[in-house]
């Protein structure tokens, strides 16, 4: 935890506004984990290599494991975990709009794997030393597991980026995901991001998180010559995006640019509708 500053053992100890922002962030993260797991699971069979399908299986399970921990934490924020996990309507989900529909092609899945999954990890990394102890004590395990997701994405992007056809496919798939991920951290000066940073819940505000994400994914997309990021020419080591995100329709509460949510079939799977009669403690 942040040295020399008092930790918060439970949500009730947090200032009201910080508690609201953190609760909201945890729902956003849990929903993204749940939906991203579904998207990985779409590729358990039919990936370009059997090994890739096995990797998708492992990554899907990791995401659902992380989602399970996050939904459980929300109980202490006054949310009813069962309701959050099993009873919400599609429009109540706060996952990125990119996850509303399946990844159509393998490069689309790689964009989610490398860019979106890393965006979530950057948000968790910012809470590794959080003053909010229940998060602080869980993040390192989540990040341990996420390291393999990044390596998987990096390996595939580097491999596909080595051919003209592969690079073109990656460029088409990565552009919308890139823009959405830049936006996902919120605009510079975002109120929630600033409140969480100032309270020591995170170690960076929205702009700082976006910069850290660029540090992680910039070198990979540059190596694959996707023309999305470049190193600052001044020798600062800072990665810059070549693309500016649009803020049209951006809703900071749900961290989405458009209302929507998973379609009916996906919603039923995400909520576990068919398993409802078997739900037990």
């Amino acid at each position, binding site marked *: 935890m942040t040295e020399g500053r008092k930790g918060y053992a439970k949500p009730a100890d947090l200032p009201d506004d910080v508690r609201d922002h953190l609760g909201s962030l945890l729902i956003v993260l849990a929903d993204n984990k749940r939906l991203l797991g579904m998207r990985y699971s779409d590729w358990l069979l039919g990936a370009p290599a059997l090994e890739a399908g096995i990797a998708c299986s492992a990554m899907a399970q*990791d995401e659902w494991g992380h989602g399970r921990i996050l939904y459980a934490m929300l109980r202490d924020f006054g949310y009813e975990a069962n309701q959050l996990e*099993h009873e919400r309507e599609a429009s109540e989900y706060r996952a990125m709009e990119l996850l509303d529909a399946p990844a159509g092609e393998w490069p689309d899945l790689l964009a989610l794997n490398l860019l979106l999954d890393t965006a979530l990890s950057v948000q968790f990394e910012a809470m590794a030393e959080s003053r909010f102890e229940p998060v602080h*004590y869980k993040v390192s*395990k*989540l990040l341990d597991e996420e390291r393999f997701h990044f390596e998987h994405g990096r390996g595939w992007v580097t491999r596909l980026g080595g051919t003209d056809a592969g690079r073109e496919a990656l460029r088409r798939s990565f552009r919308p995901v890139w823009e959405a991920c830049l936006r996902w951290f919120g605009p510079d000066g975002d109120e929630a991001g600033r409140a969480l940073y100032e309270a020591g819940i995170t170690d960076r505000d929205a702009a700082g998180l976006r910069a850290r994400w660029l540090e992680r994914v910039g070198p990979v997309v540059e190596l694959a010559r996707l023309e999305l990021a470049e190193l600052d020419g001044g020798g600062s080591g800072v990665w810059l995006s070549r693309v500016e995100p649009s803020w049209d329709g951006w809703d900071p509460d749900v961290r989405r640019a458009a209302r929507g949510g998973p379609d009916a079939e996906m919603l039923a799977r995400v909520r576990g509708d068919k398993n*409802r009669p078997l739900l*037990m*403690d």
Partner: protein
Amino acid sequence: MTLVQLERGRGDPRRTATLEEGMNFAAVLADSRGEGQVLPSPPEWTEPPADLAEKCRRALYEVSDPEFLISLVDLGLIYGISAHERSGEVAVRLTFTATACPCTDFIKWDIRERLLELPEVSEVKVEEVWDPPWTTSRISDRGREILQDAGIAIIG
């Protein structure tokens, strides 16, 4: 077709499992829990346990991980045990090898059942913890030997 309803407390319908009669749920569960699996004998102790917490820890050498043929203690999943000598309340700090462990409920159940067999234990609470993260370095030397004999090499 007759349905059997298994109440799981508080009368909340969402917490009610409905199963077709004839489906031997207990048997399925027992099988999933690994009953019948031969777990290597616990270590041989030369001294009696110093206190109730130590007695509980020793008992957990008899609880296997559902996927590996070693005890939860040898696998390094038990991060701490505290026990109130007079009231018999026991708290176990438990981690899992992965956040997506599919056996979390079975493991917690097995711990409770085994510890409640001790006459001094009145109540068992299991706290799930993730810090520090579990790695294979937490497997005991004894656990490594048992796994190696079963043809499983542990790296790290």
